């Protein structure tokens, strides 16, 4: 477990006891990451800010039900933000433009690079760096199919439409891509 994870767990546990200061620290440490993510999904600032507001109210109300043994705190909070962002996306009827670059430019460049240094230099958590290292090993279209689903709430057929590919191909690619990520991450954990 990384220091970050341990710290987040401590704040989350204190938040469950309705400790406002700990909740503020949790907010300060995670809100810009979560807001950047919501903004990537919804594009419009007002919508993303609404989602962050609702999500943190939900984190405050449900912190006691967070089970530390199951998922990492950041996973739990990201899932809350993602679900709320997708709810909003459905409400506005998905009128959000989907562009090809799902990731931050620096992340994209780092993933494409044969040199491991750019990934190490990214200002992201250790968990995200590990995932980036494994993403870098995927073919770029497999990576794109997975990213489209993750960021835009797309189904197999919608991803297929975006990439102008048969649905069967997309299904296979996504499955293969996910399996490769799992194997790669397991290997990294073992180190």
């Amino acid at each position, binding site marked *: 477990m990384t220091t970050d994870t341990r710290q987040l767990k401590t704040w989350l546990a204190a938040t469950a006891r309705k400790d406002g200061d700990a909740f503020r620290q949790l907010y300060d440490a995670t*809100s810009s990451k979560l807001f950047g993510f919501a903004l990537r999904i919804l594009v419009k600032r007002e919508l993303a800010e609404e989602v962050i507001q609702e999500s943190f109210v939900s984190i405050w109300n449900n912190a006691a039900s967070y089970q530390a043994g199951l998922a990492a705190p950041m996973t739990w909070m990201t899932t809350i933000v993602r679900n709320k962002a997708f709810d909003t996306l459905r409400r506005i009827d998905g009128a959000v433009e989907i562009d090809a670059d799902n990731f931050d430019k620096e992340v994209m460049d780092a993933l494409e690079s044969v040199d491991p240094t750019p990934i190490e230099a990214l200002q992201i958590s250790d968990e995200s760096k590990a995932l980036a290292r494994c993403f870098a090993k995927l073919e770029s279209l497999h990576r794109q199919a997975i990213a489209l689903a993750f960021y835009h709430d797309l189904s197999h057929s919608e991803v297929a439409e975006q990439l102008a590919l048969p649905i069967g191909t997309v299904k296979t690619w996504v499955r293969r891509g996910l399996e490769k*990520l799992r194997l790669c991450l397991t290997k990294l954990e073992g180190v």
Partner: protein
Amino acid sequence: MTIRQNVRQNATLREMLAAEYALGILKGGARRRLESWLADDAALRFAINEWQDRLNPMSEFATPVQPSPEVWRAISKQIGLKKTEHQNRKSFWLNLREDLSFWRGLGMASTALATVLIAVLLTRQPEVAVPQAPMFVATLTNEQAQPIALVTGDAHNHKMVIKVVTRQAVAEDKSLELWAVPKEGAPRSLGLIASDGTVTLPMPEGSTPDSIPLLAVTLEPKGGSPNPNGPTGPVVFKGAWLNI
């Protein structure tokens, strides 16, 4: 055999469905069916959690962006946090100062590190004469204790040099602002610093470690804090101000 039994018994199938569920690509009837099994299938729940742990860090591949201060105000109002924004800030600086015993404990280590860094700086800039007047130094670190910037103060020339050793990604509408955190009273702005490279700022009279035990950098709107009495953004790195 029903699909349900299949998922219970076939670990490969369970993994695949859990992965597609966590990714979000599993939709419609298939998604609802899987959700209806969750309540009494611990193995499936566990597999989904594992996949969320694997995939959710993808969220950090988007550029982080600071939400506006209104978002926090709306949240704290909605959940009925009693403290006002002002009290929060005060308690924050208070906490930082209370941290000082911790900083003092680190003093020896920091001084040693700072001395090494100074030596590096001096060898890199051979034209700089070895200073005679009182010198102060701080190594500013982030939450992960990673050194971000080195600050050296020269009491004789009333100047301080801030060298960023780890380049910072700062949004275009933001600035990094350096603060002197006194033992008592409000923090005082020392000026804006660059996200990379070196900046020289005037050092106000009396900025000795005796009265200013701590330096901190906050993330502010472009051009610095709009509040004349203190910062508005979060502290991004900080360090004890020490005599060497």
